[in-house]
């Protein structure tokens, strides 16, 4: 069944497979729930069996035996290597510089990788009140390398985000600020900042701090990508064509990692 389905796959599956490739074996990754969690577990089940997963809930070195529905799921506790307080997660692991890879998404992102998970519209009278930072701000500040997973649309890939919740490569805000245009070094941000953006259409890298489309998925055109981006997205001269996910990865995702189809 998996094989017969492998020609038809969802964008979320393509994103998970491509995101998994960003993770190396024996890397320490700060995992969020949803697609990042699927990508990490796919990497573990394939090329990165010793991928080391840490959750902001305090679970360190997890071995979940079901798909965790929240970052505080009890399956992340049972059989983990260590449970620590959230103070330790933020002070010792994140601020202490031990997190190699962070994963974030958001409602909006700009060309510099600034992310908004706070409000749509004006902060004091928002059109949509989003959940807020959670751990996103400090993950973006401290991770040695940040991966962003987001579906592309002109509403989400915007010229200027309504609120900068998590810092990208350069500060760019709707709010009047003397910091406009300053880079990470000016803010003394210790982490490496956004490195790769995995979307449902292709993959972007940052060149001189700005997103550039470097990979495009099988069956997607650059016009589609451009139409899905709220600014004039730069496109690499050597654009890599990403093949469809193979049957093995799809089977793993569908039958083992997310059999209840919670996130795919």
């Amino acid at each position, binding site marked *: 069944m998996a094989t017969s389905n492998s020609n038809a796959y969802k964008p979320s599956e393509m994103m998970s497979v491509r995101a998994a490739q960003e993770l190396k074996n024996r890397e320490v990754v700060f995992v969020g*729930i*949803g697609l990042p969690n699927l990508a990490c577990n796919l990497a573990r089940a394939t090329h990165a069996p010793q991928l080391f997963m840490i959750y*902001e*809930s*305090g*679970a360190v070195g997890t071995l979940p035996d079901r798909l965790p*529905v*929240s*970052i*505080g*799921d*009890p399956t992340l*506790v*049972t059989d983990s290597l260590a*449970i*620590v*307080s*959230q*103070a330790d997660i*933020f*002070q010792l692991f*994140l*601020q202490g510089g031990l997190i190699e890879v962070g994963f974030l998404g958001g409602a909006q992102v700009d060309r510099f990788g*600034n992310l908004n998970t*706070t409000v749509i519209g004006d*902060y*004091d*009278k*928002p*059109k*949509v*009140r989003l*959940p*807020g*930072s*959670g*751990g*996103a*701000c*400090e993950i973006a*500040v*401290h991770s040695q390398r940040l991966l962003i997973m987001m579906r592309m649309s002109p509403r989400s890939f915007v010229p200027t985000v309504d*609120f*900068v*919740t*998590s*810092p*990208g490569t350069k*500060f760019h*805000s709707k*709010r009047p*600020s003397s*910091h406009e245009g*300053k880079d*990470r070094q000016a*803010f*003394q*941000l*210790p982490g490496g900042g956004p490195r790769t953006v995995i979307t449902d259409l292709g993959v972007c890298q940052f060149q001189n701090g700005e997103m550039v489309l470097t990979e495009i998925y099988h069956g997607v055109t650059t016009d589609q990508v451009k139409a899905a981006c709220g600014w004039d997205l730069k496109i690499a001269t050597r654009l890599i064509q990403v093949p469809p996910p193979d049957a093995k990865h799809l089977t793993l995702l569908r039958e083992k990692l997310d059999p209840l189809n*919670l996130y795919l």
Partner: protein
Amino acid sequence: MPNQTHHEVDRIRKPKLETNKVRSMKEAIADSVKAGDTLLIEGFTHLICFAAGHEIIRQNIGGLTAVRLTPDLVYDQLMEAGLVKKLVFSWAGNPGVGSLHALRRRSEKEAAGGVVLEEYSHYGMVARLLAGSAGLPFWPLNNYGGTDIPGANPDIARVRCPYTQKEFATVPALNPDITIVHCQRADREGNAQVWGLLGTQKEAAFAAKRVIVVAEEIVDTSLIRSDPNRTLIPGLLVDHVVHEPWGCHPSYVQGHYDRDNDFYVKWEDISREVKTYQDYFAEFVHGVKDRRGYMNKAGSTLIDRLKAKPRRCEGVDYGY
């Protein structure tokens, strides 16, 4: 929007050493939660004491400043009940499912009953509790550079390292009037032992003026003393101890019952409309006297579905 005055923390405290603090939830809430309080019902996914929130709603204790990293369903219920004037938080949502609809109805337009919001990131909230627990008025952290967060919250300030001259963010101490923590087991003095996720339970209890410990099991002090490294909250901080099995449902207690993920999913529909929300209150909050009544209403299939399968670890040796 935030407009906090920074009082000196009243550091000198009277430790609480009564030997039997066990009360009903009704008594404990009536005694320790006051209108206008800064309230913290702690728990990060794990150990969120819904039973305490429901009792606060039944007693209609209002004007609250509700604080927590992750105000979730029970905080939304306090808001829908009109008891919250201000919410201090870092992530407000129904994890993995959707929004907090009572909050959205009160924050997306200036409606009557609007709730004032004061927001940090998770680390900022943790740092506020660290300061509050450690008796310092501020806590330094390397955070918030290159974001709009300090611009939206004037309580985030800066301090200069006297060694490197580098600037760091600070947040002010948070000292709740009342912290409520749920745990697997506690003795009658309130010595509480917790395993699985710890959240900021310890810091929240040390930072608070009053503390209620709610426990799945009340145990003899000798069991606490047999494994002292497991004690997260010493009884000398604790005002009341409540014995409340299943007090966290739909949240969970490691070793006792699983998270009711189905409930969190269903909640999205219940909470979207005021009518269904109020119907829920009528049935499961005002329609019952206490948590026992709630569990009777929920039915034994709930227990069958969520009761934890045993997974016991070995003990360790404290001999010398």
